[in-house]
């Protein structure tokens, strides 16, 4: 079955420390994978995307993610957390063939402690 799994529902880091938000996928096809961020009471904003080009993808606000086919993972990282990074993060995949029906992960809430 096609799926996107975010391994942590909550992650808490101190300001200035690295961020790691984990995402695994299951797909019979070569997937396209995305990370979105949702700040409180806001819509979802695209952070970065992987579309079978470079496996290390850089996004906005200092975030990056690495596509690892052998591990079926697409983890989101940032070297140093900022207070403004506190938000909900969604890993999203276009996993199956056919028309662009995407699968959302269940979200990871990132808390940044001053």
């Amino acid at each position, binding site marked *: 079955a096609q799926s996107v799994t975010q391994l942590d529902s909550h992650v808490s880091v101190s300001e200035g420390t690295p961020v790691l938000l984990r995402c695994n996928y299951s797909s019979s096809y070569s997937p*396209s994978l*995305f990370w*979105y961020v*949702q700040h409180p*009471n*806001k*819509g*979802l*904003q*695209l952070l970065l*995307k992987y*579309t*079978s080009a470079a496996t290390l993808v850089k996004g906005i606000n200092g975030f990056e993610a690495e596509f690892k086919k052998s591990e079926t993972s697409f983890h989101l990282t940032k070297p140093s957390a900022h207070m403004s990074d506190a938000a*909900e993060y*969604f890993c*999203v995949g*276009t996993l199956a063939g056919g*028309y*662009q*029906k*995407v699968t*959302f992960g*269940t*979200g990871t*809430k990132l808390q940044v402690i001053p």
Partner: protein
Amino acid sequence: DTAVSQTPKYLVTQMGNDKSIKCEQNLGHDTMYWYKQDSKKFLKIMFSYNNKELIINETVPNRFSPKSPDKAHLNLHINSLELGDSAVYFCASSQRGPYGYTFGSGTRLTVV
């Protein structure tokens, strides 16, 4: 210069009423979507239209009816609103291919 705009942003209404949410995109995308986000932040696709044609219709009560007058607009009409319809509804658009979505800022629907 909003790319995907939804109106209204907030909607409070009584059970049994009929309401509509409008969505417009000025990105020239050919596909538009409606998603429902529940209280646990889980996003579930409801409908998708490509060039005014319905292409995805998930298991949604038939009280929900999407309408796409042109490829830049996708409206959502809900009849006989129920308490369980309370959620945030997001409109999104995309171009065909692995480009990701552009989301609207959401409509928070509260049924009382």
